[in-house]
């Protein structure tokens, strides 16, 4: 086993970093959309809206029950054979859509759990002093649920960043795709993959640091 080619790794860093924004953009867009969709789904599940509740359960069951890669292939290659206009969707958009649908299924469940987890006495107290349902949600339940949901949602975001590495299968050259192609040119696989692993790791660590600060803020009211 030869020694690591550090010069090659250093040279690779700026090239790979130039693909990092695309990776983060796809993850961020996916996260915002997934969060919005997941909130909607969670509310439907909590309120057990007739009809919609069953549809939501089916949605969650499918997108949680099949691999993300299968879903991406279905959207990008499968459906366009039936519905031709879908070929207008490019790989980046398809990846964001895939991430959104897939992760919203997971996130809906953890948001629902956070809402349901707020103690019933809180609701009863709020209603007893004459709050409306909207006020109850906005002022009492959601602030407490957010605090519970943040750690798991951040977990999904981290997972989503890493899941963007599947996008090269749809022809999107993001961080991982760029690494794979560079490795194919140099055959220095170990160097290339160590470099990209460190980049992913640093990015996730920065996010974890942000998460700790956010949690500290949300926990202020609870610290003694």
């Amino acid at each position, binding site marked *: 086993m030869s020694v690591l080619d550090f010069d090659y790794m250093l040279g690779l860093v700026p090239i790979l970093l130039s693909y990092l*924004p695309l990776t983060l953009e796809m993850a961020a867009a996916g996260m915002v959309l997934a969060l919005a969709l997941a909130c909607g789904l969670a509310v439907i599940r909590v309120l057990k809206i007739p009809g919609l509740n069953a549809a939501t359960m089916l949605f969650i069951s499918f997108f949680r029950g099949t691999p993300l890669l299968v879903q991406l292939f279905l959207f990008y*290659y499968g459906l*366009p054979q039936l519905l031709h206009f*879908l070929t207008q969707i490019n790989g980046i958009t398809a990846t964001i859509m895939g991430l959104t649908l897939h992760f919203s299924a997971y996130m809906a469940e953890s948001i629902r759990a956070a809402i349901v987890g707020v103690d019933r006495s809180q609701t009863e107290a709020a209603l007893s002093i004459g709050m409306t349902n909207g006020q109850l949600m906005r002022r009492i339940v959601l602030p407490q649920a957010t605090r519970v949901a943040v750690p798991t949602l951040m977990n999904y975001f981290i997972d989503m960043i890493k899941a963007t590495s599947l996008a090269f*299968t749809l*022809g999107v*050259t993001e961080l991982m795709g*760029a690494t*794979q192609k560079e490795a194919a040119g140099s*055959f220095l696989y170990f160097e290339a993959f160590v470099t990209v692993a460190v980049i992913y790791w640093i990015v996730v660590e920065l996010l974890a640091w942000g998460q700790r600060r956010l949690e500290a803020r949300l926990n202020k009211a609870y610290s003694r």
Partner: protein
Amino acid sequence: MLRALALFRKVALPVLSAGLLTAAGVAQAQQDDTLRVGMSGRYFPFTFVEQDTLKGFEVDVMEAVADEMGTEVVFETANFSGLFGMLESGRIDTIANQITITEERQAKYAFTEPYVYDGAQVVVKEGNTSISGVEDLAGKSVAVNLGSNFEALLRELPYADEIDIQTYESNIEQDTALGRVDAFVMDRVSASQVIKEKPLPLQLAGETFSKIRNALPFRDTEQGRQLRDEVDKALSTLRDNGTLAEISERWFGNDITQP
């Protein structure tokens, strides 16, 4: 701090603008006068990336073809397993990734005339004397690329049942060098190139065992066949005027474009 800012401007800004250009590129790719070519970008020396630049025999050939046709060429890179999906869903016009003509593929796609003639080659780890050709593969584990034609070639062998065929998405050279599999099968041209240029302890085992002809597949529709005919015309001009041979000499030191 200033340096970090400069780095940000040097790295992040071009990327953001590149993002916009990508969006523009997608729109542009819809135009009729652009030839959209898919490739893996991971098949040395046919298509690979060095210092962020896409290079290789396929890139040079397709650029010459587009020049000859008087059109623009756009390269789309994706994992090999995604390429035929992109072709079928109309996102690219053809695949330049040493696609071997097979009966199954011919039934489904409209191929140009072959532009590369080659053979299947067994490659083993350096110093491995137990395998000296395809006839020694019985009882061994052999790696091939997922979706490639070499798997089918191995399965046609009379003793195919005794071969432990492992399909890979990539990195078959690496796993053979590491000893995880006993051998891999690839086309002779790129196998010899890998051994010559890359720091992996590998060697050719015996002669090639099957003739293969590689060509460009197009969708088997009226539009696809029309484009195929235009590309075929350009290819035959490039063959006659020596351009194909010249590109081949440059990458391989010999002419692989003649039977």
